[in-house]
């Protein structure tokens, strides 16, 4: 059958079937199983009311159970068995094998890098864009443009950025805009300003911000008085402080590198094949896509801040920076957390970009693509499932936190 026709038939059958199910199951319940007439009318109606929610929920529960809940357990099981040995139980052998695979560690390391850089950069850019666009008349147009990449597929974005990163042989016209710009640099004063001084300034600024965060995280724990936070809170705070401290170090090293490194001026670069840097070039794609999301949410949050609190701060003599950091930021901090976690989840699942742009070559592997490799290229379900479980493990804290919040809210 022609697929378009098949599609049409499916829509009719699917939609009609769903409606028919809901309609007739309700009729069946009310007229046949527990008829609302006769001597037991009252009792029957009550019984029908007890059953009805489950009629409404049944298809959803079935689909959720089959397509999301069951696979979690099936994957756990698969990760503990070996397909080539007739699905025999092999304990943690798959995990051990994965632990010995350098590609896995490369993927894990890259994923960690993605996890730090992409949410941070998207949120920061989003916040910046929200702040700026809310102050100008054509802000909503600007927002539309920055938000637009949300509609573009990862694959489409991959093509778009492949063109940006394209390299032609030396001496010919460059058609990738990045190389075209790169070739403008020749080591003269402007190159030094833009490629050495600017990065150093930015990196030092980030390092300062991170150092400030270290202090914010660690201060309550180190304080000698009784108002110290509880044990779990302390642990979370200390580990956050340690992670940020590592970031400070990384930024300082980067700054040092920017000063002392030698640049291959005048030579077109194959950006996607330069290890470590290429991961960043892939991340730019996702940042480009996710910034719009962060901007929309944060802009709504910023506009939700009561105007009076800001006016009060102005009258108290706060300058714009102080207003931003001590009045606005605290009021949107919970939204920032939501944005951050949402992007984190996207990052953990990121597959298409890497698959389409480098397919994990040149040390750009990430977990999702590693898993796909193992599952469908190497046909190794055990290790593939083990990799999937690692992703699940990384998502779990967010899952628990979300559920905890949702339950708190419902009370």
């Amino acid at each position: 059958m022609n697929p378009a026709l098949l599609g049409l038939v499916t829509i009719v059958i699917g939609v009609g079937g769903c409606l028919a199910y809901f309609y007739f199951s309700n009729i069946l319940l009310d007229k046949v199983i527990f008829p609302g007439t006769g001597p037991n009318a009252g009792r029957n109606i009550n019984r029908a009311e007890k059953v009805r929610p489950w009629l409404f929920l049944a298809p959803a529960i079935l689909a959720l159970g089959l397509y999301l809940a069951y696979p979690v357990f099936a994957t756990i099981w698969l990760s503990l068995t070996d397909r080539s040995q007739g699905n025999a139980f092999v304990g943690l052998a798959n995990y051990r094998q994965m632990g010995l695979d350098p590609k896995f560690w490369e993927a894990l390391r890259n994923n960690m890098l993605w996890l730090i850089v992409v949410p941070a950069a998207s949120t920061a850019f989003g916040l910046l864009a929200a702040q700026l666009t809310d102050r100008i008349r054509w802000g909503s147009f600007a927002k539309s443009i920055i938000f637009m990449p949300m509609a573009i597929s990862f694959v489409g974005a991959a093509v778009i950025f492949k063109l940006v990163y394209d390299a032609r042989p030396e001496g010919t016209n460059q058609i990738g805009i990045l190389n075209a710009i790169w070739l403008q640099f020749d080591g003269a004063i402007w190159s030094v300003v833009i490629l050495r001084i600017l990065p150093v300034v930015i990196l030092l600024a980030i390092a300062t911000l991170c150092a400030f965060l270290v202090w914010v995280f660690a201060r309550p724990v180190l304080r000698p008085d009784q108002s110290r936070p509880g044990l779990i809170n302390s642990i979370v705070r200390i580990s956050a402080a340690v992670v940020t401290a590592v970031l400070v170090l990384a930024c300082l090293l980067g700054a040092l590198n920017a000063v002392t490194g030698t640049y291959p001026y005048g030579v077109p670069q194959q950006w996607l094949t330069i290890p470590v840097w290429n991961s960043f070039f892939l991340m730019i794609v996702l940042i480009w896509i996710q910034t719009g999301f962060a901007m929309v949410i944060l802009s709504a949050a910023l506009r939700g801040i009561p105007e009076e609190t800001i006016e009060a701060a102005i009258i108290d003599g706060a300058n714009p920076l102080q207003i931003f950091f001590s009045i606005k930021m605290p009021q949107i901090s919970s939204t920032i957390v939501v944005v951050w976690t949402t992007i984190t989840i996207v990052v953990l699942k990121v597959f298409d970009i890497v698959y389409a742009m480098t397919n994990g070559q040149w040390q750009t592997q990430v977990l999702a693509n590693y898993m796909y490799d193992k599952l469908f290229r190497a046909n190794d379900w055990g290790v593939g499932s083990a990799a999937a479980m690692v992703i699940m493990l990384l998502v779990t804290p967010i899952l628990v936190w979300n559920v905890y919040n949702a339950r708190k809210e419902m009370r």
Partner: protein
Amino acid sequence: MDDGMAGGKSSLTWVVNISVVLLVALWLFPTAGLFISSFRTADQISSSGWWASMFPQEQNQTLRTARPGEDNIAEVNGVYQIDGNLFVAEGQAADIDAVQATISAWGTGSLNIDEYAPGDTADLGDGEQITVQANGDYVWTSPEPQSGRGQRVFTTAKTPPEFTLDNYRNVLFNPNNREGMAKAFFNTLTVTIPATIIPILIAAFAAYALAWMDFPGRALLIAAVVGLLVVPLQLALIPLLRLHNEIGIGKGYLGVWLAHTGFGLPLAIYLLRNYMVGLPRDIIENARVDGATDFQIFVKIILPLSYPALASFAIFQFLWTWNDLLVALVFLIDSSGDTTVMTKQIVELLGTRGGNWEILATSAFVSIAVPLLVFFSLQRFLVRGLLAGSVK
């Protein structure tokens, strides 16, 4: 915001405006590059950056005069003469009126391509001479009748921007193009529409139950939905593929529809429930007093009132299924490749036609166009949905 306040600085407004212009440019440039490239010929793409195509271009070309023959050699005062236009002779323009390039310099040897200015006359030896005008008109004279091939002329010319729809014609409407997007486009559509509509229906009923019906375990179910919201679908690939194979669905549309339905449900239920809970309780109770059954309340009251939330989710799910690669790879596309979708087709092209930007750019833009259209026309709902789905 600063406008109304005393002492607001107008210079700050300028800084803000310029920053936003920069930001917008940064975000627009990559897409613009692809969009513009899709309207350029392969030659144009590979000879200059897309950003240059917007302006008249300085282009070096090697052109030939018309091939000497009986019909175009005229004898004037004992001198044999061929005249015509270089661009017409090369087929770059249909006739003299259609010539758009302007020659700024030209030459007759490859080492010295800008030896002459337009209007100059060059000596070709043996008494032969050629004069080239700025618009490409030439007069080639010789004491003997010319023979062999046409005379080579190296030109430096400014050509105005030029765009073509050929790429789209080739990618979309050429039935012989095995790499064309037409089929993949329809396949994607076939995947997308049922995969958008069916989860909405299922989710709407479930959301109504979770929002407005009282039963034991409701809170637990809501928590479960919130939890499933973040479960990576990667986990589901193998178990479900195996399940599909066991129950005989295998790889195909049915499988991919079911998979998208399952994966889309948590967000759908979550969004719709959040919205429905906010509907006024009195209205629903009034309908109950009016004698409506739960099914009637749902169909006649809840569904029409939940239209904004339904639209939000429909857009999400549409974008997500249209743009999806992984689910299609795993559940749909079999070895025959008959059911390939656009994302897969593009990835394939990236592998085999990595350098053919005219094909890549056009194919990519074909797949991007529909979501962009949806995005710009229904942005309102998308934003509303995002806010409902993530702001707590």
